[in-house]
Each structure stands twice: as C-alpha cells, then as structure tokens.
C-alpha cells in the first residue's frame, strides 16, 4: 500500500529513501546504480524498493475524484 518503514528481513530503515529512489528511476536512471548510491547494500533491503508499488496513490484517486465532483456541484 505505502512504502514500508523498514526492510522486512533485516530491519534497516528504507522508507526515507523511497521518494528519491522512485524519482530517480522514473527519470531514467539505472535502479541498481541508484541503490548503490543510496548505500543500500543487502539484497533484502534492495528488493524492498525495487519491488514496491505505491498502491496508496491509486486508492487516493477515489477521494480526489469525489472531492472534484463535490466542488463541481457547488459550482453549478
């Protein structure tokens, strides 16, 4: 749903790296190199970021849509 705070296996803090990782990978950088640059060495921690899908963004869309409709109703 949302990026886990820590690695499931070893417990290293990885949540704070997600936004930078996602941004740089989206910009076209090589994911492995970004992870090396962030100092994430173990493969348990690397898969946390590599395999993550930020589903909460999809869920929030329903609320954003509902909000827009509400505003539109006010308008007319």
């Amino acid at each position, binding site marked *: *749903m949302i990026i886990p705070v820590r690695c499931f296996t070893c417990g290293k*803090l990885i949540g*704070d790296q997600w936004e930078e990782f996602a941004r740089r990978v989206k910009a076209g950088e090589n994911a492995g190199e970004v992870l090396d640059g962030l100092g994430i060495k173990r493969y348990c921690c690397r898969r946390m970021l590599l395999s993550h899908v930020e589903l909460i963004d999809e869920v929030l869309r329903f*609320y954003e849509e509902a909000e827009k409709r509400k505003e539109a109703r006010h308008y007319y």
Partner: protein
Amino acid sequence: MVRYGVSKQVEIKVLERDDRNIRLLIRDVDIPFMNALRRTVTSEVPSMAVDDIVVLENSSVLQDEIIAHRLGLVPLKTDLKSYNLPEECSCKSEFGCNLCRVTLTLDAEAKEGTRTVYSGDLVSENPEIVPVSDKIPLIKLAKEQKLRLEAYVRLGKGKNHAKWQPVSMCAYKYFPRMTIASKRCDACGKCAEICPKRVLAKSENKIVVRDLMACTLCQDCVNACPQNPPAIEVGGEENAFIFSLDSTGALPPEKILTEAVKILDEQLKELESQIKVKKSEES
C-alpha cells in the same frame, strides 16, 4: 587448538566505521564470547520506540493499527542516560512518568490537496528524542482527510519486540585464512573466475589475493581447482573474527557495543553470585 574464554589481550582493530556502521577485527576471543556479544546487542541493549498510541482522529485510508505499526518501526534517537526502562522506573506506573515516557504528537490535515505526512511532522516533547530521519513517509492524506494522534515512546529491549533493537544487522564471521600452494598451482585462473566476491585475481602467471576480508569461506574456489588435491585452501582462523554492526541510528555503533559489554558483564556477575548462593546452600 581451541581456547575457551577470553584471553587477557583482546586485539580489536576498526576496519571501517561511519556514523551508522562499524566493522571490527577481533582477535583472541572464542565463538561463545562472540555469540554472547552478538545476542546481547540484538536482544538486551535498550533503545526507544513508540509503544502505545492514542488515535484522536483518523479519516485516512489506512486503519489505526497500520499507522500504529508504522510508527512503532520509526527509529528514534535514544537517550539512555536520562530515561529508565519502564519496568525499572521508580514510578511503577503502567502509564509512565517523565523519566520513562516521551510523548510525540501528530496533527496533520490535508488542506490544499493530497499530501504526504512525514516522520518530521511528529512533534516531540523532548527535542532530543526525535525520528532518526525526517523523511520517512508515515501516510498519505487526500484533501480534507485528517490524522491526529498521540504516541508514547518508551525504552525497551529487542527480546520483547524487534522495534526496540538498536541494530538492523549484527553479525560476525571467521577471519579468512588462505593458502595457495605455489608448486601445484599452474595459474589456470579457475578459482579467480568462480569467486563470487572477487577475492582472487590472476596476474601474469600467478594468483594474487585481492581482498581477503571479502571472502565468505564458500569454498567455491577450492572446488573449482582442477588440481588434485586442490592447490588452494580456504579456512577460518579459530580465534579471529570480523564483526559487523549496522545501527538503526538510535545509538551510535560504538555506544551499542560498549553498552552490550556492560550488560553482559552485569549478567555474568549475576550468574556468578547465583552460583555462589546455590553452593553455600548445598554445603
């Protein structure tokens, strides 16, 4: 020969260190000692974590329980001097007092549009006890969603919950010892090729050890050697270890180690006194 116990002169060398991680070479100790140290670090050294939360308002898409779990895992900078473990505190109160509890509050509302609430939005009553990083996403709120809560931070030990572990990794391995019989080795390079850690390298007509510390003693190079018996031998030194520790950021790595040694010392003294009591009872 395997020696038991710790000799008088333990040799410790720092191989690497930064503000979170430390790697040591420890000589003249044995496995029981190393393991005791490791286990003390992971399960006995206290650190701080959110233990209880009171949710005042939550209209977000995540349930209270998930938020509580996420908050629990946020590593916090720990002050061992000014705070007591709740079970050892003089207040004897389940709720805690100023010496065994820190309150964090969060009051977040998405006014403009969708926003992310970060660990940096937590307001601590003690500015020393704050999340290790300000950028940990706690939750995302859509417009008009609210999250208000109070979180109570307590000291605890890793043996009760992993969130109280001060380390994310604490492990040791044998110090590798490698011998290459230069007479039998024909420098075919098979061992250098197969090594997953690239410990060995072929240079001219000889095999050289590039980075001995990286060796995991996997024995792949020995198995790959076409000579019979293999020209390369890999083993561990009996009384030397490479000890590595990754702090979560709650405490500096060397502080974790000194704290662990102190706790281990106290426990051994306790054991000794109990044995003495038992003996005097018997006689």
